């Protein structure tokens, strides 16, 4: 009799524990999904210059990653250090020229997205595109070697025009 009670108790205790953990979301873990960088990512109505720069960076990374056929996250990590970049280019069989072209394409997409979102006036978008297209290969490589520098330059594009842009902001 005691044996049966012990077995039933074990079953009940086990089911209670597993049931409680499942009810609390124990089986629901899914890593955050990585979005396809080729799919347009909506701009979340940036209000300040900093927010525009943020969206601009994301768009540029998306555009470059799409061009290379990798995720935006993988490209971000690849740009973090020269060693990471080397491993990345070796892994995907990408040379520096292809990487530079992809970064240029990313920057152009960022300008398009900014213009489409109304965050960048066409008056500014045109010269920005021209500047991006004419970035020398070496400079493009230098830009992608350092994520900070990439963004500094992105901000640099906007920086001089910042005061003008602010006039277009809501």
């Amino acid at each position, binding site marked *: 009799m*005691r044996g049966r009670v*012990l077995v039933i108790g074990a079953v009940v205790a*086990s089911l209670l524990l597993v049931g409680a953990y499942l009810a609390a979301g*124990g089986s629901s873990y899914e*890593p955050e999904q990585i979005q396809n960088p080729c799919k347009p990512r909506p701009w979340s109505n940036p209000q300040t210059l900093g927010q525009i720069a943020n969206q601009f960076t994301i768009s540029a990374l998306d555009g470059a990653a799409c061009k290379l056929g990798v995720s935006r996250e993988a490209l971000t990590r690849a740009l*973090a250090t020269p060693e990471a970049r080397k491993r990345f280019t070796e892994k995907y069989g990408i040379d520096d020229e292809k990487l530079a072209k992809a970064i240029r394409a990313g920057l152009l997409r960022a300008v398009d997205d900014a213009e489409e979102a109304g965050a960048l006036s066409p008056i500014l978008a045109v010269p920005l595109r021209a500047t991006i297209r004419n970035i020398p290969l070496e400079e493009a490589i230098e830009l992608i070697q350092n994520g900070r520098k990439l963004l*500094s330059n992105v*901000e640099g594009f906007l920086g001089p025009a910042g005061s003008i842009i602010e006039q277009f902001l809501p």
Partner: protein
Amino acid sequence: MALAAVPAALLARRVGPGRAAAVGLAIFAGAGLACGLADDLSTLVLARCVQALGGAAAVTAALELLPATVGSERRAATVWAAAGATGAALGPALGGILTELVSWQSIFFLQVPVALIAAVPILSVAKHEAATGVIEPELRRTGRPHLWANLALAMVSAAIAAALFLLVLLLIEGWRLSPITAAIVVSVMPLSALVGTKLTEYVADARSRAAAGAILVSGGLAGLAFLPKATIALTIPPQILVGVGLSLVLSALTETALGGRAPQAIHGGWTISARHAGVVIGLLALTPIFTADIDQQRHDAINAGTAVILDSPVNPLLKLGVAEKVSERLEEEKGKVPTIGPAFEPLPDNPAERAEVEQLKGELQDQLDRGATHAFSTSFILAALLGLIALFPIALSKEVEL
């Protein structure tokens, strides 16, 4: 140990349990010293093999010596089984504490005096055997090894080894706890095993105890597989189930395997073999699975973490700096879930930015912790299934009274 247990038991029968235990403990102590002094892996493994030979002789001979001390063969089997179950639960916790407080070598150095102290009371028995010669005890060779009980022991031991091994790994490698903290956390299992030992006194039927124990071990493992959050507190209820379960099932199955069989040392040797074979098979089967899972989860968690960084409202310059530092930490802690705290240092002075960065840090840590926790789920589930499958041989096992 799995290979040496039965031959060691045969030797104990031939030379006498007192002498076998004394020599076994001496070998165990000497090899333990060699383990502690080993300066490369090969020496350590070799010394551990020698230690297993000594340990096998001592443990199986102890079963022959115990009836004289505790009064009966049945009581001896119960005490011997309970000691084995307690040791299995206590080992990882004690090892973790010693590793952190002193060094991993200290685990082996501590074994030397313990083994030698244990040998002292046995010396008089050994001397007596040497003086009088070994009288071949009445050879009640009643039957072959208990197939079903030993098979169940192997399965349950595989599940329990997985519980102990995987949980320690999850705590240290996945959640980045220090070995001493992990040891304190897993000490819940040996403490719960003591409760299980008490239950043994109230339920005589070994098959019921074995079944209940296997169910509790499986339930606890399933609980560990479905942890809703990466917090220590949530590991405690599953550990209680595993701890109580392991003491119930290991002692009940060992008693069943020994019940009505003689010589005790040899059948005890079979139970030792079954348990250690189960541990080896369990680790061999589950290690590649969780290694592959943890690699995949690490990859997914890192991608998810990078996405969290990029999508955060934190200043772009700041977050690319964080991404850079996180990448560096991934390199530094290759193959592990990275400690990301230093990637956020120094925190910005601006209170608003500081709050955003703190939030980002929390989200990123959560992604990594949940990924690491999830990486162990499949292995815990498979281990839980092993425990449940053991119910079949438990159902087929019949207890024979001594």
